[in-house]
């Protein structure tokens, strides 16, 4: 994703006035929801700037089982967990890709199960979009190259009951802390990490707080004679 283009609208890029048909993000956000999902198919060029297209071609040329998607001018490559180490090593060592920085490693928990409708229209809770699928924990590696000034995302899906994946800490030392954080908050086991233990929660803490099945954990609050339940237990 080259943000040099994005806010100014030069070339592809993001924004309400992208010229491609069914362009990503028209002015009305509610309408954009359906169209954006249509665009997440393999190889659609809408929204990607030229350097990113070349980058994508290079990566897809080297690893042919990648699923490519683009959203708001950002390139995302979905890889299989077994491919991850090879792919990340290629991204670091190859001259045209040359990602010196692992900018971010984050997780998102998409739990399985039925789609939940929100109780009330007005202030509804997040409705899970997944139908009867298995729950997954999605890991996103944001790789950034300073020499070529490009940034893209490598996404890996893991099963949410026993998430485990190889660690990239030998390739990038920044992954040492970031993988510990993902372990702490999601329970993902990184094989090969030299020191996988909790980093932000106390050492004896049980549970992985950022998972969706972990409650927010607040207390009820007294206010002017009544009590108000914590945010995750309110019915409005």
């Amino acid at each position: 994703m080259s943000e040099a283009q994005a806010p100014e609208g030069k070339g592809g890029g993001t924004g309400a006035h992208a010229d491609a048909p069914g362009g990503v993000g028209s002015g009305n956000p509610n309408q954009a929801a359906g169209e954006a999902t249509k665009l997440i198919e393999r190889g659609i060029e809408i929204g990607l700037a030229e350097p990113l297209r070349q980058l994508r071609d290079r990566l897809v040329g080297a690893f042919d089982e990648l699923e490519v998607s683009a959203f708001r001018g950002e390139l995302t490559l979905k890889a299989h967990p077994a491919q991850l180490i090879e792919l990340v090593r290629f991204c670091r060592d190859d001259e045209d890709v040359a990602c010196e920085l692992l900018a971010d490693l984050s997780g998102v928990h998409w739990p399985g199960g039925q789609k939940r409708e929100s109780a009330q229209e007005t202030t509804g809770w997040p409705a899970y979009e997944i139908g009867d699928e298995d729950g997954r924990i999605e890991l996103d590696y944001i790789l950034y190259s300073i020499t070529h000034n490009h940034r893209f995302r490598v996404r890996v899906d893991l099963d949410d009951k026993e998430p485990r994946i190889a660690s990239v800490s030998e390739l990038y030392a920044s992954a040492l802390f970031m993988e510990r954080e993902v372990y702490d908050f999601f329970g993902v086991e990184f094989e090969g990490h030299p020191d996988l233990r909790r980093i932000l929660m106390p050492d004896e803490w049980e549970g992985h707080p950022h998972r969706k099945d972990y409650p927010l954990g607040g207390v009820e609050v007294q206010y002017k004679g009544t009590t108000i339940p914590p945010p995750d237990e309110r019915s409005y």
Partner: protein
Amino acid sequence: MGLEQNLPSGILLTSTERLIGWARAGSLWPATFGLACCAIEMMCTGAAHYDMARFGMEVFRGSPRQSDLMIVAGRVSQKMAPVVRNLYDQMADPKWVISMGVCASSGGMFNNYAIVQGVDHVVPVDMYVPGCPPRPEMLMDGIVKLHEVIKQEQFVERPRKGESMEDFRRRTGWAVGDETDMPGWAATRTQAKGAGGESAEANTMGRLSETAAARGDA
């Protein structure tokens, strides 16, 4: 007080408690216990613009053993709570705690798994200063009110080392922050007030008892 008015000016009568109270309040040394955003405002209060040195408090002691006042400035997380209590226990009597900011007073906007909902679950608090973060003037107002309380107070019970706050309250009747006077809560005020708490509340500086009178409370 009657005798003082009949004497020529320049002669002060005092009692030992008032002298001690005045001495304690006059140079209350805070321990550096800044945790988060409120710590920056506490540093601003100590800096030149809103000087705390005028109250004899610019000496922030690094070691809790040498300080009188612990200003808990910032949000106390679950991991930090035992550390707070440890530091409080290390302080020598007499010691006071100001809970600065809403996060220290009640958990603030962070009503979740990670934050202790009010540092008074961990240490006994003498003065709650709300704000997110409180302006330096608000903190100084809280400090000045605490000075007045200190000048008036007789010996006040403090928790023993390792004693939990529930045991301490059962033993002494120390009131919790949310049980004291708040608008609309007069009906639910508990009767459990220990000796020290009662006198501190009853004969604090004129402003406070004036407010109580205006509310129509005892």
